[in-house]
């Protein structure tokens, strides 16, 4: 309280809410849960989302598909790069939050933030290149021109990594967006605060509302709703507990979801295209060649 006396003002604390459809609602359930630092001290109360929040987030994500997937790849790259610019500008804030969330020294947390920013830049740059790498012209045996190109899968449910609250989150989210998908992200259950701050960055960047939706709460409670949702096209199981994965995969089979089970959780490593390919569909188009 000595600061208070010295500065003469009370710091304004942040209310951590959900990010759905470009807005920051509380959970429709009215629930919240305490988020603590690794030492057990209270950091904040985060919104504890319900299945209805998952539902709303999927609706928002679906609504955003046409615009985001229909944007030019160049435009998506620009928008994503703008996010990186804003991350850089909030470096100090994120370093503090990551340090608090993950219980690591501030200097180490800052490196995580830098890596996250760089990763965002990496994926921003992929936006108008991936189709060239993953696409092809198909030299078919006939008078036809055939080409194949990657298209976004649609709405991707992302269970963000539980440990790496920012770099991990960025590493799973950015590739989904790069190829034109929209996302419903279930943030790290115990370390959700950097995710909400990232949502604030996204909200003030040029990313259209609904392209990314971030919900916080109990992963094991929320993930099954995402997995069984028939308007979700793909599911990234990165943040699911190993014991829960089988059940989620079973639920995901309901609408033949594409399910991504990561093999590598080393967020420092160059991801290559390993997280771009799982969330695209290859479309092949044929047309006759004649006069």
């Amino acid at each position: 309280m000595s600061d208070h006396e010295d500065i003469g003002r009370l710091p304004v604390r942040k209310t951590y809410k959900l990010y759905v459809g470009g807005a920051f609602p509380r959970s429709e359930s009215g629930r919240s849960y305490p988020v603590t630092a690794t030492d057990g001290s209270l950091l904040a109360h985060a919104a504890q989302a319900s299945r209805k929040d998952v539902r709303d987030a999927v609706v928002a994500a679906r609504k955003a598909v046409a615009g985001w997937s229909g944007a030019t790849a160049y435009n998506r790259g620009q928008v994503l790069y703008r996010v990186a610019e804003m991350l850089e500008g909030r470096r100090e804030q994120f370093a503090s939050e990551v340090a608090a969330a993950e219980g690591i020294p501030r200097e180490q947390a800052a490196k995580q933030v830098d890596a996250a920013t760089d990763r965002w830049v990496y994926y921003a740059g992929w936006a108008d290149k991936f189709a060239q790498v993953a696409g092809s012209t198909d030299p078919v045996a006939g008078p036809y021109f055939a080409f194949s190109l990657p298209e976004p899968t649609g709405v991707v449910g992302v269970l963000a990594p539980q440990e790496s609250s920012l770099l991990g989150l960025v590493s799973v989210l950015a590739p989904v967006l790069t190829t034109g998908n929209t996302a419903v992200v279930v943030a790290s259950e115990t370390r959700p605060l950097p995710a909400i701050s990232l949502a604030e960055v996204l909200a003030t960047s040029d990313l259209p509302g609904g392209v990314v939706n971030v919900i916080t709460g109990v992963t094991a409670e929320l993930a099954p709703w995402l997995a069984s949702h028939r308007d979700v096209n793909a599911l990234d199981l990165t943040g699911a507990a190993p014991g829960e994965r089988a059940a989620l995969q079973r639920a995901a089979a309901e609408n033949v979801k594409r399910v991504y089970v990561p093999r590598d959780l080393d967020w420092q490593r160059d991801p290559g295209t390993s997280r771009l390919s799982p969330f695209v569909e290859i479309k092949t188009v044929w047309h006759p060649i004649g006069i």
Partner: protein
Amino acid sequence: MAPRFEYAPAPESRDIARLKPSYQIFVDGAFRDGSGESIKTINPADETPLAEVSEAGPSDVDDAVDSARRAFDGVWGRLPGRERGKYLFRIARAIQERARELAVLESLDNGKPIRESRDVDIPLAAAHFFYYAGWADKLSHAGFGAGPRPVGVAGQVIPWNFPLLMASWKLAPALACGNTVVLKPAETTPLSALVLAEILAAADLPPGVVNVLAGGPAIGAALVAHEGLDKVAFTGSTEVGRTIQRTLAGTGRRLTLELGGKAANIVFDDAPIDQAVEGIVNGIFFNQGQVCCAGSRLLVQESVADEIVTALQRRLSTLRVGDPLDKNTDVGAINSAAQLAKIRELSQSGEQEGARRWSPDCDLPDRGYWFAPTIFTDVSPANRIAREEIFGPVLSVLTFRTPAEAVEKANNTPYGLSAGVWTEKGSRILWMAQRLRAGVVWANTFNRFDPTAPFGGYKESGFGREGGRHGLEAYLDV
């Protein structure tokens, strides 16, 4: 008035198929009786038995998977790509050499017209082996990193609509990448896969690299659930695909699925009408409509709907339905009694729900499984025949007014395998192609297949691609 130009029967001889009285499963490089039942495979065109087929039992699945594992660890997984490739080239050539025999065999067992088995199924099967043969020693250039490794042992379950072609779609990329395989053909069409096993043996493919198990759904289920596999590939119904996806949940085994479809074939008022009519006919009557990518929903712009339907009716009246071995047959037999019952049931529902049914006059044979080419008009998007995969020679005609409406209606299905667009306006083709949620978009053509062109579904039509460079991914450890 001139006399009718009656085409005299021009049947291929069934002797060409060199049918044997009985066929055995192929495990660890040898043919043997399976531990399952012995069944008779029948000719769907006349319901006569073709041959006895010894089916696999659960112990055969174990043996086949073990054999495939030994072959993977011992030989195939270590063989240089160059050598693997030469085996595949050999196989491609052997299929070409025995093409006529395989075509007749396929038409006998499946009921498809000899023209199709001769001109499409068998040549494409050979082409797939030929294409992937060349990849075997070039995998480092396929875009999956340097020296990509095979996945291991693959279990592959294929359908009855294109028996040999589906076997080739599955086997060729798997083998090219260095995997070994246990393949299960469909219960009603096991023969060509078992003859392919003869070809593999004659090509000196090491024992266990490919095992072929005849059997029904229970053997298929046992195979896909087998813990000795690293990878499962399935082509068939969405219902079964979903079950397999559930079965493999949590196992870490890899899966690709090529499932059902309810493709929209979209015809605009500026289409090349005569070619569109051909494309519509090919789209739904090719292989009696028993094609997952069949253009079963005709979406026609309202302003040309009457003209198109009239032209279609005229064209259908020239389709020749009958003996699959007759070179002049356009539409053959339905593959099985069960499939015929399903087609009948759905067609009846179409009538009950108020759609108008039309078929040309055609004399169907008394014996065998036959269904006349059928068009439903006045179909509403809510009718079952507009939503469910019929997998038969039944076309549902719906109309639209604007391009946006066409896209909306085309995409209004849980499936997403293929789509057709007919218009002479180039920019509209690309606009449509961009928006159709389907793995293959045929513009001003339909039902084209090529080993270099990836094929596979969006949404509930499955995931993974077969064909082309993309088809390698499912069989590489990437």
